[in-house]
């Protein structure tokens, strides 16, 4: 499974919104994304985008 660390914030936001609104099929992410507002999703995405993926670390 690829790590999200370092992904562009825009694509994380787009994916989360699509999970939330049912536009993107998922197993569990739809259920989780529905708990967050657009502002919160943006904050999460910006934080993830700023993370470097260390070789031996799956990231927080």
């Amino acid at each position, binding site marked *: 499974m690829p790590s999200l660390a370092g992904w562009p914030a825009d694509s994380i936001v787009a994916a989360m919104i699509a999970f939330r609104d049912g536009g993107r099929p998922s*197993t569990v992410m739809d259920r989780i994304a529905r708990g967050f507002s657009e502002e919160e999703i943006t904050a999460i995405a910006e934080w993830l985008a700023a993370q470097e993926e260390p070789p031996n670390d*799956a990231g927080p």
Partner: protein
Amino acid sequence: MPDRRKVVIGIAASAAFPAPAALAKKAPRVVVIGGGFAGATCARALKRRDTNLNVVLVEPNARFTACPFSNGVIAGLRDIEAQQFGYDGLKRAGVEVIPLAAVGVDPGAQTVMLEDASDLDYARLVVAPGIDLDFNGLPGYDRAAAKAMPHAWKAGEQTLLLRRQLEAMEDGGLVVMSAPASPFRCPPGPYERASLIAYYLKTRKPRSKLLILDAKESFSKQKLFQSAWETLYPGLIEWTPLSFGGRVTEVDAASGTLVTEFGRHKAAVANVIPPQRAGAVAQAAGVADQTGWCPIDPVTFESRLQANIHVIGDAAVGGAMPKSAFTANMQAKVCAEAMIALLRGEAPTEQKLVNTCYSLVAPDYGISVAGVYQPKDGLLTEVEGAGGVSPLDAPASFRAQEAGYAQGWFRSVTNEVFG
């Protein structure tokens, strides 16, 4: 020359850097008791967030044995070594690990007493002891009885004991499990265990049966479990709820008998999951209330009963979050963030927390329950409209995907905490 060089370095070191003791006095010390998913995550998160912080983890075991996926060990699908993790990763991250048991806490003096009679001062303390089994909560079930009727609710030797008992059982034997009333560690755990034991019986001892005696009227992911049992293990698992006499009131370890209000059940293999409470050190620290669990503030995880002590993971209660490794890991990070703010004299910010619990009904058949939580009226409350369980009608590919994600979660959480 070598001598002279040594001396010069010695002088340079003492002049340029203060002695470690002086540093220790300056940086506030956070002590974390318990190196499971909650405590180890918290220690590591504190260090990640503030490298100057003095973080001490007090944990007597050299290796942690994880509960998630330990039902796979019981069913012979996995080795116990895959469940075990050491503390070298935490040490590399700058956490000081003290391999001793904490035996007491003085909240007034802000000190932890260790088993070797030494003391540790703290600016803030994290109590993360997980659960203790209540050996006074079920007549006949004491430590000696657990050697004949394993609980296997703390992973390790008990897990292997239950596995050996199943392996030694003759085909056609009756396995009896007892599940406790809420709250307890891992709400879907007994039913995942029943599923994987059924998988073992179906493939290895197909004339055998499994009876679950339950002190509850319903259970986590019930429809998903029961529908999968009908498909995968028809006629193999019988579940008896509270109202049908499911509550076990007494056990007799010598004869392998579980007693309910309605009758007696003699088991070839008995797995008794007894009532539970917060680990002993929580009682010693004065952070557990009369229920045996530890009430907390949902923003900071600070104890409702003692200042400067935070409780996270299975020992804590404070709303709707289930007692799971995912919850423990999440609470630990939120708690670490809040503690750093408090140590700096800043106001902690409210966070949302997520939990996802996967259960395996068979090796390639996973189901899940998820929830998003936020502090509301002093409790961790489910965010409306979010969360829920896997769909009841889903193709096999969906179940296989969730089984794969369960493995992926375990790999990434253990790598994040112990790697």
